[in-house]
């Protein structure tokens, strides 16, 4: 549904965003570049201790990820093994006609009529309370459109 112009515009902007994203990876790219010249890499990363900042940071990250992700999994499997095969709570019986009738203050017979009708029109008051229902039963054929 985009015009060709829009398609080119958004596609170009997307390429620019990818370029900006790759800019964030410059430290890694520099490392790879240095890796081509082994002596430079050895000097910068080992003798000048350039790796230490990166490893320090990544170490922290991995530890935090392991703790957070691991906690989620431990919690999940704790619950699985604790409650496996157990129905701790009882099933609730299906809502019966009397319960529904009481909620809407109608008789069960009226409720049956509503649940059988093909077409209903409902009126509500300003607060959203159901005030009235007009219905067309299944047994009454449609006349006209």
């Amino acid at each position: 549904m985009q015009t060709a112009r829009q398609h080119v515009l958004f596609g170009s902007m997307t390429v620019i965003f990818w370029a900006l994203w790759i800019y964030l990876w410059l430290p890694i790219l520099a490392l790879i570049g240095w890796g081509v010249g082994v002596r430079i890499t050895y000097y910068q990363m080992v003798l000048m201790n350039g790796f230490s900042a990166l490893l320090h940071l990544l170490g922290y990250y991995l530890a935090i990820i392991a703790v957070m992700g691991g906690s989620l999994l431990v919690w999940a499997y704790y619950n699985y093994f604790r409650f496996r095969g157990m129905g701790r709570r009882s099933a609730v019986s299906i809502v019966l006609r009397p319960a529904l009738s009481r909620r809407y203050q109608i008789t069960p017979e009226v409720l049956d009529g509503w649940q059988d009708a093909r077409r209903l029109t409902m009126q509500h008051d300003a607060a959203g309370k159901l005030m009235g229902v007009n219905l067309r039963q299944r047994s009454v054929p449609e006349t006209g459109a």
Partner: protein
Amino acid sequence: MSQQFIRDCTNVLLQFTFYYPLFMAYVWMTGAINYYFRFERASVSARLPPGEPFVPPVTVIIPMRNEAAHARETIAQTLAMDYPDFEVIAVNDGSSDATAEILDALALRHERLRVVHLAANQGKAIALEMGALAAKYEFLVCIDGDAILDPCAVRWMMRHFAFPRVAAVTGNPRIRTRSTLLGKIQVGEFSAIVGLIKRAQRTYGRVFTVSGVAAAFRRSALHDVGYWNPDMLAEDIDVTWRMQIRHWDIRYEPHASVWILMPETFAGLWKQRLRWAMGGFQVVLKHARDIGRWKTRRMWGIFVEFLFSITWAYSILLVTLLWLLGLIVPLPAYIRVASPVPGWAGVVIGSTCLLQIAVSLLLDRHYDYRLGRIYFWMIWYPLAFWILSALTTVVAVPKILNRKRHERAVWVSPDRGIHRP
């Protein structure tokens, strides 16, 4: 207040703004991958659910307001679903277009279709409740007026209800509107956020919300919690929390694909996301006291994570403002934000974001099409949608705090994307 204290606060703010999305991304991925291997992998290519079929009669409820453009298609696709015994109730919520006439005409032609007309616009919550009132059956599948169910979606949802404490099953919304950049980004977003996070939340054991566009309910559970609340902007989030507070179980079914229309204009997207943000905060505020009890401790994880996400929205706004201000006027060193993306961490968060999206698209590839192509466009996601999420949250919080109590949430016509004329 000493300069050192302010400097420390600024550092904490920066660290939190940066590291919260970073580490939460790995939590989501961990949970989602666990879910995939435990619950999904064995049946990922299956057309029908494994094991003994559980196919009780269902009522599909479709609330509609001004859906004349989509009603025929939605009804037709719903009536064509692969399910043995069902009825469809379309609820016309006081539409001002031809929705009522279209539904009445369709009901004449289709025996399974019944129509409920609400004389005036009552909002989605009441529309759903009236559909539930008119429903014959115990199991209700509620979908939006523009939603197209996969033919076997209901079969996949219903299998969960064989377990008596399951109150609701949320489906897997997929985006139909992908002709524009916004549409494409939302395709990836729904996988990376909705799909990934739902799976992770199921690993945790509680979900933030069912998808309002497609969810199946047990009527007894709805009756137990008092159905949908018409005061809530996000009735889906509210009913989810009330069910879980009452110790019902909510499941996610990735096979239950539902194809929906999403906004493809900035204005439409803003309105939608603002409503979601307001709805989420409204629900959390309303249930904060319930959550504080020991009996509802299993909701604490969801609750705390949501609070963190609100805090993050405000922190990213503050960091961005400080950074921009520092470009214009000289700020003292202890509050100056030199760069919003610090050093090596920029590599990590950039990679993490793209990794999260890649993982989510891989998990969802069985339920959607051409997801690989979507990946190219997802580079926009952090810039566009993180900022959108932060801004809508920042705007939503004061709006909800100032909102009148018991103010009803009525329906607004949503942006359904851009279509061929």
